[in-house]
């Protein structure tokens, strides 16, 4: 359920918040996506897109934190330093 994909906002148009839309880039594919539910999104942000709507702005700091933590588990495991 809920196939949603992250993409980068390349341009934004529309003044009426209900009809504000963005060109979003997915690896070179560009699609027009509604920003009706994410009024704070700006060019350069990453958004999570489901059936033509941005559901949220991706929190890049959280993403970095999660990923660093994951990568670190890896490093600790490899060095045999993971706490038991």
């Amino acid at each position, binding site marked *: *359920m*809920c*196939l949603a*994909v992250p*993409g980068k906002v390349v341009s934004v148009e529309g003044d009426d918040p209900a009809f504000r839309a963005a*060109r979003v880039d*997915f*690896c*070179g*594919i*560009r*699609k027009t996506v509604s920003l009706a539910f994410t009024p704070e999104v700006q060019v350069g942000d990453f958004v999570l*897109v*489901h*059936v033509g709507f941005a559901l949220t702005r991706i929190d890049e700091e959280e993403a970095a934190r999660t990923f660093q933590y994951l990568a670190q588990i890896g490093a600790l495991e490899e060095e045999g330093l993971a706490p038991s």
Partner: protein
Amino acid sequence: MKESFQPLLHSRGSECVTEPRASASGSAVTPFSCPAPLAAVERIVLGHGSGGRLSAELLRDVFLPMFSNPVLDRLEDQAYLEIGGVRVAFTTDSFVVNPLFFPGGDIGSLAVHGTINDLAMGGARPLYISAGFILEEGLDMEVLRRATASMAAAARSAGVAIVTGDTKVVEKGKGDGLFINTTGIGIVPEGVCLSASNARPGDRVILSGSIGDHGIAIMATRDGLEFETAIVSDSAALHTLVDEMLCVSKTDIRCMRDPTRGGVASALNEIAAQSGVKIQIEEGQIPVRDEVKGACELLGLDPLYVANEGKLLAVVSPEAADVILLSMRRHPLGRDAAIIGTVGEKRAGLVTMRTPFGSTRIVDMLAGDQLPRIC
């Protein structure tokens, strides 16, 4: 709301009753007391043209029983015929693509490339093509001129001649603009004997380049799914690439298939089934362009099932795999060629894929077309 129910047809010998009866609420429903009434599909659905399981069943259940003969029953992409001591390859194909003009090609060039490729997959040198046109009343003459010009250019470029043809016109609403049917004839060189039933345990599977380009280029123009992309169809004639491969070795190539509708997954399943072997491919070895990957992620599609029009799969002996691969990479249409898998033990047609995680999943034949999904 009352309506009359057609009794369900059963072609599989199941013996259950399907009389409509009234449910508690008063509307007539059919008791779902037997397995899958939908197995007995009584009408053609789009899935029958998708190159997947429904297509295979149509062939098996309708056409083969009627037409069966030793040549047809081999079920290759082309028929091998001996005529006056000469080995001739003979094929037919129909082109119903919509839209007629798409990034990287059109129905005309596609018709030439597709026909040439069917012959080339049998190792034949393509020589002559016929072109039958079914035109819808009201079709813009300019559209026909453009498609024909493109077809002529593709034929010239490939060194084949369109030597005979036919034209029919159908009433408006019955033809989607333009359909093209072709036949192709070629000569099979001495010593070449390719067949999808030739794959043996230990053989290697080579893919000539990135997958999914054609299908995604078409999908980008589809109503309701439009997206901007630089991806163009990979539509191309593969016979000169095949020539290079046959120059290296005629006997080490077991079979070749061009993974058109149904994609690489369907083509591999066909080979595995006809040869009665297992085939395992490596996900990490399969070239997929970033944009194709992006489009597939967005729509929920698996690139393994997306159509290609300028790629080939070759099953080759393990000893010759590397040198055949090198010869392919020297050719413009084989620059990204890669060995993607191995033929495993004799086993009723199973295709599996090892993921980058080291786990193995089945790559099955789909029933019909892949559809974009929300789930």
